[in-house]
């Protein structure tokens, strides 16, 4: 999943020097983002293009005749040189045409429109649950640093972090669907977000599974930033002024510790788009992750290409937004060379 307890990976570097204008910073980061996206699409296209068997055989099946394969390749432009195909793909991509899924018989864009909200819902709920629990837990650890609650939460967090999603999901299913059958082992199958929400019990286990994994990362993150902040001069000043301990912790230390969470949330955007593949697969949740999984099994190239591209864009965009948000919140980031 995302974010180890390593702030340097998500927190923009702060360097000394003169702050560059915001627009320049944004422009430079956007330029970098475009290059990364183009590189990712190129590499994905190249890899898929070179898979044995090719797209035609995947689409038409083992029993297809050479004539049918030739006709398909002609129709899809797969006879063109690689670069021509790639440029065509890019031009279609820019115009919003993500291709047609030959396995699911629908335009890929439509499929994504159907499934993306479900994945977003799942991921946002998981992130929210994780945050709601992680922030107080992280704060508790920081304030009780080196004491039993700190060790206890650290142990639990590490255990949760080290446990593969698949395993924790299975554990929850065995516990709450089979041993004590109070929750369904299958996520809601409804079409729209409203349908999904109306079957909210089905959401509990997938959201819980996803939250457990992210909870550990968030807790560690909040803990370490809060420890840093508790050692800052302004905290000492606040205490010296005689402010109550709870007020110092919550109003000052905790609030400032939440800044880095901005970048953490930014990095979470790709997860929103790609879907927690394992969780969707385990709970049969019909989101982007399950669609991607199905596409890998059936070699549905248009879906694989589109999903990978979207995840790449989301990753770059998430990182970009996080950096910009951070730069807005903390101008030191925009010091010359700031950003990366």
């Amino acid at each position, binding site marked *: 999943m995302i974010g180890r307890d390593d702030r340097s990976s998500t927190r923009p570097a702060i360097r000394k020097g003169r702050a560059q204008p915001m627009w320049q910073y944004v422009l430079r980061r956007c330029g970098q983002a475009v290059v990364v996206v183009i590189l990712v699409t190129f590499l994905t296209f190249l890899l898929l293009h070179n898979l044995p068997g090719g797209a035609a055989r995947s689409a*038409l*099946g083992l029993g297809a*005749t050479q004539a*049918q394969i030739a006709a398909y390749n002609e129709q899809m432009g797969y006879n063109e040189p690689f670069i021509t195909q790639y440029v065509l793909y890019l031009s279609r991509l820019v115009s919003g045409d993500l291709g047609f899924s030959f*396995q699911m018989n629908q335009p890929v864009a439509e499929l994504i429109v159907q499934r993306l909200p479900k994945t977003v819902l799942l991921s946002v709920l998981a992130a929210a649950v994780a945050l709601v629990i992680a922030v107080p837990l992280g704060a508790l650890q920081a304030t009780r640093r080196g004491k039993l609650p700190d060790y206890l939460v650290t142990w639990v967090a590490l255990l949760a972090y080290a446990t593969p999603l698949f395993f924790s999901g299975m554990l929850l299913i065995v516990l709450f669907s089979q041993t004590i059958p109070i*929750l369904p082992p299958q996520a809601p199958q409804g079409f729209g977000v409203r349908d999904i929400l109306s079957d909210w019990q*089905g959401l509990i286990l997938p959201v819980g599974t996803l939250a457990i994994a992210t909870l550990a990362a968030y807790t560690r993150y909040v803990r370490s930033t809060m420890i840093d902040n508790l050692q800052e001069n302004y905290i000492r000043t606040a205490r010296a002024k005689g402010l109550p301990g*709870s007020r110092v912790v919550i109003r000052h230390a905790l609030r400032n510790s939440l800044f880095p969470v901005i970048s953490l949330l930014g990095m979470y955007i790709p997860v929103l788009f790609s879907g927690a593949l394992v969780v969707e*697969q385990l709970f049969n949740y019909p989101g982007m992750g399950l669609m991607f999984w199905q596409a890998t099994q059936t070699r549905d190239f248009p879906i694989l290409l589109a999903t990978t591209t979207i995840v790449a864009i989301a990753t770059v965009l998430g990182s970009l937004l996080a950096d910009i948000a951070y730069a807005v919140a903390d101008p030191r980031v925009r010091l010359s060379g700031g950003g990366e």
Partner: protein
Amino acid sequence: MMTSTPRLTHRIAAGAAALMLALAGCSETSSAPEGAAAEGESVSVAMTTPTWILPISQPGKTQGENAIFISGLYPSLFSYELGGEDEFNLDRERSMAESVEVSEDGLTYTITLKDLQWSDGEPITTRDVEFWFNLVAANKEDWASYTEGGFPDNVEAFETIDEKTFTLTTTEAYAPGWYIGNQLNALTPMPQHVWDKTSDDGEIGDFDREAESAKKVFEYLITAAEDPASYASNPLWDTVSGAWELGEFTPGGQFSFVPNDAYEGEDQPTLSEVVFKPFTDDNSQFNVLRSGGIDYGYIPPGALDQKPVIEQAGYTVEPWHGWSITYMALNFANPETGPLFEQKYLRQAMQQLIDQESISEVVWNETAAPTCGPVPQEPGSAGTMEGCAYQFDPEAAIQLLEDNGWNVVPDGVSTCADPGTGEGQCGEGVEEGDELSFTLVSQSGFTATSRMMAEIQSQFAQAGIELNIQEVPDSVAVTQACEPGAECTWDMSFFGSQGSWYYPVYASGERLFASDAPVNLGSYSDERADELIKATKFSSDPAALEKYNDYLAEDLPVLWMPNPVNRVSAFKSDIKGISPQDPMLYMYPQDWSRD
């Protein structure tokens, strides 16, 4: 600070407790896990979402779930059952055709339809069969089952005798078993009175009777079929001929069958609804099954040891045997190793090193049975190799290699010591020092397959045949037949963890082992085999299939491997009529009932 944290802890603890209470409370008032509501006359089934509805399959749309889906709504003219009394394995009760008669010269098939009707009350007539035929004839290249010279190329004339009778005259006299089993099996009545148009609001006409307009009708129907999201709402699909109508088809992929009240066939449904729940992954399906959330699912191969748990949960567990064979393909077209595979003695030696009986019993937990030739053994038959052309005999295999000029190095790599084409020499195309070392591309994701390959690797090593096993998901690298002139580097390939090839009722090999067959993966080519395959299509000799089987069983176009079941089904024990499951992998929920 010191005072705030305990409060915080209390709040968290209180919140967690409230959450648990809420869950517990909800559990009392809300339903049990999904599927628990499936009771009475409804049955829920785990199935991959179908992606095709039109009874003219497109290439790439021939998956099993599509066949099951289509056959529920638009059954073919003929249904088949193995092991019955019928000469052509026809299931006369279930078939929509009353009879099929073959003329003495073997050229004309006279088919009479039963007195059945469409769901809208219109009678099903020969015009509806003609409609299907005309569309296929005008668009044969887009039909998945088309091979050059096959149906409909081999039809000289389609003639309507009356509303219920028509004749098909063939270009040559075919073996009736082959023609009825492998060609006429595709014939499907389609509602001409509803579908013979070129747009949603277009008029119904006889457009199918002209090739040009037939293409337009076909294009229109294809476009409609390419939109699964509209299956339940498009009025086109309201008119059905089968035992079922489409109840729902959700964008999420769940669909249901409800009885077609106008259906007059003998196999009337008794269930009020069959709900097919979409699963794309074995694990999630199995979790739901284990929780009792579906009535009919399957145990994934890696979880077969859970069978007792599933049975305790009220399910009947039953292997679904297929009308299939399983084999390891050898690439005769590989410029390096192809000449080695051309040596029959080497193929024989390799076959003698495969202990099919033990592998079926131990590795596959008796859910596989030996394959001895291209014609499947009776589905579900005992896993013995009695009657197989080759028995497991490592010593004989080593002797065979030594007798043909090989320096056998057990647990090493045997080399050709005596090249040449004379008796006792390695054979044509084999050079001195050539090694018996091959790469085997095998299917990942199946524990039993991995264990089987390890066993075979070990046995092969005894004869100095080195197997380098590369496990890959079949989704990544399904072995392809080599195209002429293209680089073709694979040596051996296995993708048969659920059976390599499933046959229609007549198990002839024109698509598999004939020199120009589309699925002849290893480019096997043998003149005698081609003759025998041809005979299965044309000869009036009822033993033609047997002769073809015996020759290929002995000649080894591939290495015969243990044939696993298609899947291990689990269905609630109060559902009757599921067993025996159809070896050709169709599903007939109209036969099911609940106690």
